Each structure stands twice: as C-alpha cells, then as structure tokens.
C-alpha cells in the first residue's frame, strides 16, 4: 500500500481511537438518541417474588393526561403470539403472563411523550397477586416443592439442552456432569481428604449507562437501536418472535457505557419491538439504575469441593458439586453452568475428577454472564481450598501449587490436552513479584499483614462464529465492518490494529463501522473475552482477502506485485476515475467437540485457555475487621498483547471490578424484597477503596492459534482476586472466610470466633 505506511501495528500502545470523542462528549450513545415522534416507556414491576396475577388495574394510569397507552401482556400477544424469549430457554415473557416469578419482573408499561408523565402514570397502576411460596436459595431449589416453571422450554440453540424439553417438576435447568478416572478408588486410597463449601453472593454488573433500547417501526420493517453486546442475536431473536425474515429487522448499536455481560442476548429489545408495533411510533425505554438490579445479576453460587491428597502432597482426586442460582429465567445460565463446569477442578493435574454442576431456577432476578462467566465463583472456591489444604499439611502454598500444577501437554479434567496455557509462568511471575521467598512484614499492634495468591483458568466459549468485512474505498482509505461492540474494552482500536498490520497502514487511519445488522456482518456476540481471538481472526482474514484482491488488481493492470503504486492510483487506472471498491471478507469459527453427555469428556473443549492469577498483600485491623488491600498484583497469559496499554487497563479494570465483588458488593434481600437497588446502598468501589498499588503484567506468551499470537483478556484478571485476598487474610490473622463478600463485620466475627 502507501509508501509511508508503517508495519508494526501489533504490540503498539495506540491510544484508543474513540478516546478524544469520549472525553469531549461527542461519542455516540443510544442513551442520547431522540427519534421523531418517539414515546417513552416506563415499566411497572412486580412487588412480589412469586405470585399469580389476579388483576392489573391500569385505569388510573390511562386516565392521566399525557399518557399515550398502557400495555400489558394481553396487548403484547396481539403482535407476538408466543412472547417468550431467551438464549437457552424460551422461558422469559416479554411482560409477565399469569404469574410473576421475581421481584421487579416487568408487568406493564406506560407510554407517554414525556418520560416524567410515564413515570407518574406507572405509579398509578395497581396489581394484585395471589402470593405463592418462593424459593430463593440455589441449594434448596434442588429439592424444593416450589417449582418456578411448570415445564422447561429449551430454545433449541444448545444441542446439549434438548433432553430437557418439556421436563416437569424440577428447578434444574441444566445439569452438567464430568467423570474422569476412578474417583471412588482414589478417595479410598487417599492419605488425606479435605472437604469445604464456599458461597458467593448476588451482585450486579453496574454498567454506568443503564440498559437502553429504542424501536422504530418502518414499512414492514423494524429498526432497533440498542445498547447491546449482541446485535446479531437480537436481530435473530426479534425476527423469530415476530415470525419475520431477519432482513426486515435492523439492529444498530453505538458505544456502550459498560456492558460486562449485562447487555447480552435480549434485555429490552423484544419489549420495545412489541411496543413500537403496538404504538405504531418509535418507543424508547431507558432503565434507571435501580431497574438494572431486577434485569440481570451475577449467579450466586454454592460450591462443595472435596480433595484426596497422597502422602507427597499430590492431589489424586477431586469431587466438585456446584449449584448456580440462576434466578427466575435461565438467560444464559445453563451455558455458564456447563462451560464453567469444565474447569471446576482448577488448574491442577488431577487424574480422577467428578464434577456435578447445576443451573437452578429460583424466585430471584435472573442471573447471566458477568465478566468471567462463572469462573470467579469457581476460583474463589478451589483456590481457597488449595490454600486450606496446604496450610493443613504444613506445605507452603506456592510449593503445594507447584507440585500439582497443570502443564502444557497434560490433559485437563475434560481430557482436553493443555496447550498455550502459561499457568506455571503466571504462578512464577506472581511469586517473583510478591518476593515470596523474602521475609515479609507481618505488621504490628492491632494491624496484621498477610499475603496470598491464587491462579485460575477458563475455557473460552465455543463454537462461535465471527464475520468481518473490510472495504477499501476509491481513494484507498479503509472501512472495517464488524459487529463487535466497543463497550469500553477498546475493541475498535484492537481490530483496527489487526487490519492495519495486514494492510501495512497506520491503525489510526482505519475507520471502524459500528454494528448495524443491515451493514455489518454476523458476530455471535461481544462476550467471554472472545472478540480478539474470533473477530480478530475474521478481521485478519478479511484484510488478507483484500490484499489478495489488491494483488489481483495489480496483475490485471500489469503493475508488478512489489510496486508501491498507491491503491487510489490503481483504482483510477482501472475505472478511469476515482471509483470502485475492494471488499475483503473473512470469517472464523474454531474447531470444537461437544462434551460427551454422560462423562463430560471432550478432546477439544476450547479454542484457547485464559489464565489469570492474583497476588495480594493485605492489612487487617484486628479490632474492627477492616481489611485494606495494600497491593494487588494481576498476572495473566493473554498471548501476545495487540495493544499493551489497553491490555493493562483491562487487567486492572477487571481486578478492580472483582475487588468490589470480593470486599463490598451484595444485593441485600429481605422478605423477598431487594433492599439496596441504588448506588447509595449498593457500594461499588470508589477511588478511595482501591489498593495503593495495583500492578498488572502480561506474561511473555504466545497463543499459537490466535491472530498474531493473541487471545482474550477482558475477564482474565477477575479470576484470582477473591481467593488471593481471603488467602492473604488467613495468612495475616489465621481466620478463613468461605463466603463473599469479605466485609469488616464478617472478618471481625471470624476473628472473635477463632478467639483472636
């Protein structure tokens, strides 16, 4: 291409392409969108956790001046006859039908031109319920006589859920089982057996831009503008609900003010689609912060883990039972249950493994994907368990991990042989950074110091598809069309760097076209740290395809292949004027083998492994239980960093988010009600909650299957944070916490109980 072009776009800490637009307030967000003739919707929500709807009285709301319409499920069914949606199960009604299954479930919607009028009218709606007993705990849900769904309705997208079709009388939405080796025998022969149970609490993603969607009816078409991480899925699912071909539904996104898994699959999109068709005018719904807590959460979990250890401190068998509290609608919980089930036994080389992982329906707000897809809950348990075993055996926790660590070339629990997973390297770098072998200041007076570490890993989601189009315009400039959503993780910049590397041009000259299903091609979704790997490949292939076409054009014009005739000049020679395009297309779907239904084994569980570890130094105030994290070290294997600076912020950002889930955040329920659906009482970390020192490092590693050696990073730093801190607390004051969050009162109570 141009003679001044630079190679070396990979590994370049290019500032984010959208940085300037964001800090100057010019970046596009759906939140700011105003459509001509638009009405605003305000959702009326259930006040009970489980109940039969006796009556919804909308008369007073309808009578309020300025109200355009009040809509219930009866109206929705006029435009969508079977209004149930969901990626795993078609279990979630657009508005509640007959029953409500969690507090905050949408029951009705008021439409008005003035959002304040809509809100005012919403408060005038009266609903009466025959309350039903509710089940809220994931372990109780296994055996409870309270059944959340009368029959299970798998969406048919996951082949592994088909056997659940129509099953009745259970809250189990998915059970995943893995059996490897002879667990029974190994336990019988064990020198030591350890068993512990760990729990995690309900928390929320808290994107600072709450969910927002708008739908605009056209002539037999529908355009949905939505802050979504999965525009392609939204189109497919809305088209399915309407019984329309996909080409009549158009889904557009803009920048997202954070996603973290909250804005995946369908959230408000089916609702605004139905409302727009009913109203015959554009409808927009912008959630308030409190409503997000009722929309999607992170799975609370209970994890019973049991290990057999031989006389040399080698783990010979492990039994894992994990219960996932999926809330009232499955969302993508079944996939969390299965994919995380693969790695529940931890990054250790264990010959005999039994894993049982259950996705459960309860009368809680739905749970879905949240930065780590279940992995942080698992690592919390298995890395706490690891330290507890080491402590009990009097072995240094690092040494104990080294004896058991899973190395490349060895099979993991599913039987898949590890490759390009630098688990040992991550551990080594943590140990070095912590100065593990050097003496450590243990504090004085009432403040005690301790340090701990933890390492976790994750199988990427598979198999999923990404498609990219690269368009070279007549002047030689470049547009990159892909449906990866930049929600703050810097994907626009990374994709531009990948395209630029292939085309040998500066990445900042690549224009990334944002998801618009009429324009940009299919992508499964922006989730699970999959974009760099999957879309990265598709973009690379699209750019390579374009190069091949440039070379063909050169050959066509008799220009020698190595020449530096600018592309614009080639076009001019070809078409006699500034005209034409070169369109490169690339698509990518990795190979994958589904786990065997009975044994959970597969030779190919994942296209790549993500590995993340955390080291923590803490100070514990033994008089009050306050824990100050003085130093937090995040080390990860993410292959080759495409953009080192963005990688570093992904690592520190992920760690800080998990720090909130570790130390502070908890949705508090009492009598079925959520007590703290607001940021005054649901406390995410503020600046002064952050550790004085946060260090992030990508180990020197290459993912041979990845584009330019890269793989995902968005979730990696979340894995080890919780157990590293709990392990450090134990090292400091000798108490063990097994339930998150690690609040001052919890620590203080543990200290008192231990008589310290």
């Amino acid at each position, binding site marked *: 291409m141009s003679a001044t072009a630079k190679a070396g776009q990979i590994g370049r800490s290019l500032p984010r392409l959208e940085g300037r637009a964001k800090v100057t307030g010019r970046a596009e967000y759906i939140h700011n969108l105003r459509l001509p003739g638009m009405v605003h919707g305000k959702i009326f929500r259930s006040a009970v956790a489980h109940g039969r709807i006796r009556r919804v009285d909308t008369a007073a709301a309808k009578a309020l001046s300025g109200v355009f319409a009040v809509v219930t499920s009866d109206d929705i069914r006029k435009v969508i006859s079977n209004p149930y949606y969901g990626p795993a199960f078609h279990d979630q009604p657009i508005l509640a039908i007959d029953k409500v299954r969690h507090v905050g479930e949408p029951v009705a919607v008021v439409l008005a031109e003035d959002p*304040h009028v809509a*809100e*005012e009218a919403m*408060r005038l709606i009266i609903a009466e319920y025959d309350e039903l007993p509710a089940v809220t705990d994931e372990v109780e849900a296994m055996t409870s006589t309270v059944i959340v769904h009368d029959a299970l309705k798998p969406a048919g997208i996951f082949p592994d859920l088909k056997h659940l079709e129509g099953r009745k009388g259970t809250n189990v939405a998915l059970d995943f089982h893995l059996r490897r080796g002879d667990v029974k025998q190994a336990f019988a022969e064990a020198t030591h057996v350890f068993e512990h149970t760990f729990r995690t609490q309900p928390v929320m993603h808290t994107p600072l831009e709450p969910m927002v969607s708008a739908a605009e009816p056209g002539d037999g078409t529908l355009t949905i503008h939505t802050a979504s991480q999965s525009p392609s899925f939204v189109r497919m699912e809305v088209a399915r609900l309407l019984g329309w071909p996909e080409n009549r539904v158009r889904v557009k996104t803009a920048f997202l003010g954070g996603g973290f898994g909250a804005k995946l699959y369908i959230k408000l999109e089916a609702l605004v689609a139905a409302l727009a068709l009913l109203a015959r005018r554009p409808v927009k719904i912008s959630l308030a912060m409190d409503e997000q807590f009722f929309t999607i959460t992170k799975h609370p979990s209970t994890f019973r883990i049991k290990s057999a250890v031989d006389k040399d401190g080698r783990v010979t068998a492990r039994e894992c039972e994990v219960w996932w509290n999926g809330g009232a609608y499955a969302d993508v919980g079944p996939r969390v249950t299965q994919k995380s089930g693969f790695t529940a036994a931890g990054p250790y080389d264990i010959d005999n493994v039994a894993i049982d992982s259950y996705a459960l329906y309860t009368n809680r707000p739905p749970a879905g994907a949240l930065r780590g897809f279940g992995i942080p809950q698992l690592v919390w348990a298995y890395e706490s368990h690891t330290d507890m075993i080491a402590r009990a055996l009097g072995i240094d926790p690092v040494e104990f991990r080294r004896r058991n660590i899973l190395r490349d070339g060895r099979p993991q629990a599913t039987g898949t042989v590890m490759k390009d997973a630098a688990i040992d390297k991550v551990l080594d770098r943590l140990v070095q950074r912590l100065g593990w072998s050097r003496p450590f200041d243990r504090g004085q007076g009432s403040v005690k110091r301790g340090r701990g570490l933890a390492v976790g890993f994750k199988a990427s989601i598979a198999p999923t598809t990404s498609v990219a189009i690269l368009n070279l315009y007549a002047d030689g400039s470049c547009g990159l069309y892909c449906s990866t959503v930049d929600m703050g993780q810097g994907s626009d910049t990374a994709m531009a760097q990948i395209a630029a590397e292939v085309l040998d041009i500066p990445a900042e000259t690549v224009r990334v076209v944002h998801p618009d299903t009429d324009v940009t091609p299919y992508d499964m979704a922006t989730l699970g740290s999959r974009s760099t790997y999957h879309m990265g490949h598709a973009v690379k292939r699209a750019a390579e395809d374009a190069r091949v076409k440039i070379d063909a054009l050169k050959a066509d014009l008799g220009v020698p292949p190595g020449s530096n005739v600018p592309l614009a000049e080639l076009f001019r020679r070809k078409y006699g004027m500034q005209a034409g395009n070169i369109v490169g297309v690339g698509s990518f779907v990795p190979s994958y083998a589904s786990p065997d239904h009975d044994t959970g084994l597969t030779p190919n569980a994942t296209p790549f492994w993500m590995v993340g570890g955390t080291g923590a130094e803490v100070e514990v105030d033994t*008089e*009050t239980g*306050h824990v100050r994290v003085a130093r937090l070290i995040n080390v990860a294997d993410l292959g080759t960093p495409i953009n080192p600076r963005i990688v570093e912020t992904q690592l520190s950002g992920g760690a800080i988010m998990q720090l909130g889930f570790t130390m*502070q955040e908890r949705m*508090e329920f009492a009598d079925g009600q959520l*007590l*703290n659906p607001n940021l*005054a*009482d649901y*406390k*995410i*970390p*503020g600046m*002064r*909650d952050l550790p004085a020192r946060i260090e992030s490092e990508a180990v020197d590693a290459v993912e041979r299957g990845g584009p330019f050696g890269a793989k995902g990073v968005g979730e990696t730093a979340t894995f080890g944070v919780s157990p590293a801190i709990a392990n450090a607390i134990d090292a400091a004051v000798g108490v063990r916490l097994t339930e998150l969050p690690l*609040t*001052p*009162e919890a620590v*203080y*109570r543990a200290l008192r109980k231990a008589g310290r």
Partner: protein
Amino acid sequence: MTPFDLVEPPSLGEALKLLEPDDSAVRPLAGGTALMLLMKSGFFRPKRLVSLRAAGERLARIRIEPNGELRIGAMVRLAALEWAPEVRRDFPVIGHTLRTLANVRVRNVATLGGHLAHADPHSDLPPVLIALGACLVLAGPRGERAVPVEGFATGHYETVCKGDELIVEATIPPLGRRRAAYAKCTTRSADDWPALGIAVAWDDDGAIRSPRIVLGAATERPTRLKAAEALIAGRTLDGALLTRAGEAAAEEADVVADARGSVSYKKQLVKVYVARALRAAGAGPAAP
C-alpha cells in the same frame, strides 16, 4: 417527577413568606443533593421549592467574629467550608471531617444548612458541631432564635426547625484551649455514609476539662456519651483510660442495627473509635 414551581426570592424575608408551614409539598431548597434523591425516588413530590440561593449575604458568608467565634451562613457549600483558610487555621477539625464526607461532587453542591436541616442521622458534621458547642440561628415569622446543635435533631429526619422557619447560620465558639477530633468509620466503602462517627473535644489544661464525646450515625440522632465523658473528666489520657472510656461508651450507646452493621458489631466499633478519637485529639496540637 411532576412539574413544580421553583422560586428564588431575593431576601431572607421574602423566602420566609414563600414557605407554607401547613403544606409539606413546599420546601426550602439549598444544594438539592438530599432533596433530589427524595424526588427521584418519589418520596417527595414538591409543589414549590424555595431556593435560598439569592436569599442574602448573611446565608452565604464565612466569618470569624472579633471574639473568635466562627459564623457560617446556611448556604455555604461544604467544599467552601472545607477550604476556607480561617476555618483551616482556627478549626482544623472541621476541614478534617469534611474531607471524608461524601465526595467532592457532593461537597461542591451541598450546603451546611441543608446538611443540618435534613437531619439524616448518618451525617458527619452534627457530632462535631455538638462537640464544639455550636448553635444555630433560626429565622421565622416571629423573628430569630438561637438553638444549640445539640438537641436540634429530634429523631430521624426531624428537627426543632418549624415549617415556617429557616436556618440562617451556625455559630461556633472559639476553640481556645480545646482539643478536638472526629473519627469516622465506614463499613461498606470508603466514601459511604458513616456506620458511626465519634467527635470528641475538651479543654486542655494538662488535664481533661469539660469533655464532650458525641456519637453520630449509629444512633437515632447524634448523642453525647455522658458516662464516658464523666469518666475522662479531670484525668489525663493514658492507654488504660482510653480502653475504659471506649468500654463505657459502648456500654451506654443506644446503637441501632442497619445495613452497615449489627448492634454487637457497632458496639465494638464504638469502643474502638472512641479510643481512637480521644487518642487523635490528644496527639494533635491544642489550639493556640
């Protein structure tokens, strides 16, 4: 939110006339940080808000009187109070307290009058003002009256300020030989409302004279811990006294449980933080 009137009277007198003591939907508006939250959640639906923004110089100023008394207008922003040189010099405990009150954004907008009138039991300043012996000047249709900050709040969000009255200013006597400190304890995040706050002050003549130990946030309203005060009066601080004072305070404090902690945990915190506040005040320089 439904439409309402927002008025900005040009004087205190005009403002008082626009209040309607019998209509709870008419309220004075200061920084609005508390009111806006109530309005957003639907708890408060105003008919008229009487902004005090232009209600006169007296509400807007910070002044040290010739006798050393500090006068703070009700409309003074918490951030202005935090940074005022005369306050930093003569009443360092106030600036120190404000630094951990909410966050910069709230302090830039919230006012002293709004902070006190709101009477959220979790407020940071009332215990400090009580420890320092501060008074409030209230203006109403029958003129002005002074009330001590101690006793101003009567319960959750309730005060002796009547519906037709406004806080005009706060007065704080000169510190003199008083030592003072405030220890704030949060349990959910660093910038949370306090789980409890302990303000202490005493005259230092080598021994502790006229001590005040005030507990905020953990009780229905800011409360003096008089048994602990009596215990330290006339004594000099040492480790044993700190422990005993803490224990006495925990014993007498009528703490309430909430999302920030159970009763037994908060009692422990009272014990620890009373000792810490006393130690901090004892360690700091006595006022000149």
